[in-house]
């Protein structure tokens, strides 16, 4: 049972950055007519999302968010001993993007840096790593940077994914302190479902070639993508999520021994509004405690949980708060966390 608990460590601040460019989905009729896309958009609930330009990477969005956080919280850069970069859209295959960010952010060369590649559940995994390393001692402050440019991953000619994904980056500062009480995590994986969300080529199993970058019609509906673009089997993922996410939710609530009523906000990965609405109903959660950003930022993969906190909970996290996070997706991996916050700083969203 992969259940973890931590004391006296917590998120002291969060900031986020999104690209300036807004995609209005109902008008995004490059390859499909408006009537056809209306049905899709109504179901997934993504009215708008942000697209990074060709020159902007996940790391650039994270860098902007990190600068905002460090400056507004007046953080001494020398006290940041750990930098994690969470992404599946890094700058390069090598070196790790976290190392580039250490330099760009002018952090000490004694900073521990590494990348975490997991997708939609990764913010929870990243937090658990930061909490663990801070608990081990010797680290004063940890910076968790989480960014994705999923707009560059999925084909705009594949109706299954063309209207769903958006880009964003966040920065979270994690610190030790007696002001933080207990946080709990449940983290899970099922690699037998690896093919449900996948970019099959461009790694080292099937290396990049002329063939892998060639667009092809992939189904009877005329959807088009290359093997280096993302594929998603929405029905299988949906079916898995509606079964396993509530199960993990209940498991962590029981492990933590907390009352549901004591949880101030429930922040789910913004997968699409249909899944999220279903989960909320199945778990019988009060709507007013479930902040959502799917309508304005779309599915930003691992970024969606912290981006939703920054976007929707600014001014609402004064004093002590207990929030539940639920992430699920590619891998498949999924997890639930109940974390304690105490006067968590939230910066305004930066546009890049």
């Amino acid at each position, binding site marked *: 049972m992969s259940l973890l608990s931590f004391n006296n460590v917590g998120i002291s601040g969060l900031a986020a950055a999104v690209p300036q460019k807004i995609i209005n989905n109902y008008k995004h009729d490059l390859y499909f007519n408006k009537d056809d896309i209306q049905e899709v958009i109504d179901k997934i609930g993504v009215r708008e999302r942000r697209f990074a330009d060709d020159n902007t990477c996940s790391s650039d969005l994270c860098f902007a968010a990190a600068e905002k956080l460090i400056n507004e919280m007046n953080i001494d850069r020398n006290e940041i001993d750990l930098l994690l970069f969470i992404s599946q859209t890094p700058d390069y295959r090598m070196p790790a993007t976290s190392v580039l960010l250490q330099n760009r952010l002018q952090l000490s060369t004694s900073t521990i840096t590494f990348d975490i590649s997991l997708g939609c559940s990764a913010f929870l995994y990243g937090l658990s790593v930061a909490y663990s390393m801070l608990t081990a001692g010797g680290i004063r402050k940890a910076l968790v940077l989480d960014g994705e440019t999923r707009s560059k991953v999925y084909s705009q000619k594949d109706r*299954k994914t063309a209207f769903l994904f958006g880009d964003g980056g966040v920065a979270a500062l994690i610190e030790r302190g007696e002001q933080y009480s207990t946080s709990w995590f449940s983290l899970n994986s099922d690699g037998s479902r690896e093919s449900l969300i996948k970019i099959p080529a461009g790694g080292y199993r099937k290396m990049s070639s002329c063939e892998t970058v060639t667009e092809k019609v992939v189904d009877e509906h005329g959807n088009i993508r290359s093997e280096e673009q993302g594929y998603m089997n*929405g029905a299988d993922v949906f*079916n898995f999520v509606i*079964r396993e996410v509530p199960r993990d939710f209940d498991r962590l609530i029981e492990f933590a021994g907390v009352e549901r009523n004591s949880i101030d906000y429930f922040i789910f990965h913004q997968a699409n509004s249909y899944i999220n609405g279903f989960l909320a109903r199945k778990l019988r959660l009060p709507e007013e405690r479930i902040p959502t950003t799917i309508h304005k930022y779309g599915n930003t993969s691992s970024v969606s949980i912290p981006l939703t906190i920054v976007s929707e909970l600014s001014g609402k996290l004064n004093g002590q708060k207990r929030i539940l996070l639920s992430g699920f997706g590619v891998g498949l991996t999924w997890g639930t966390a109940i974390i304690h916050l105490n006067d968590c700083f939230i910066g305004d969203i930066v546009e890049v």
Partner: protein
Amino acid sequence: MLINSILNLITYNTMEEKLIEALAEALEMDRSTIKPDGVFRDYENYSSLTELSVLAMLDSEFGIEIEMKEFDSLKTVADLVRLITDKQKS
């Protein structure tokens, strides 16, 4: 034995009614157009989007948690009814 068979038949018929009602709602179809021997994936309103509504309906209305491999093997409305009655028995 006979009573059990009759009871099973009544349960089955009630379940069939309930499923057809729920399926009609999920697929936004008139319930009279849904027949037990209908191949539900062939219905005009069945798509990758409405499939989610069918899966959601099975879960929320009937408590059915099913692997997609099993779901994909079901063809007719009667197969769905059988799935529900079998799962609810076990």
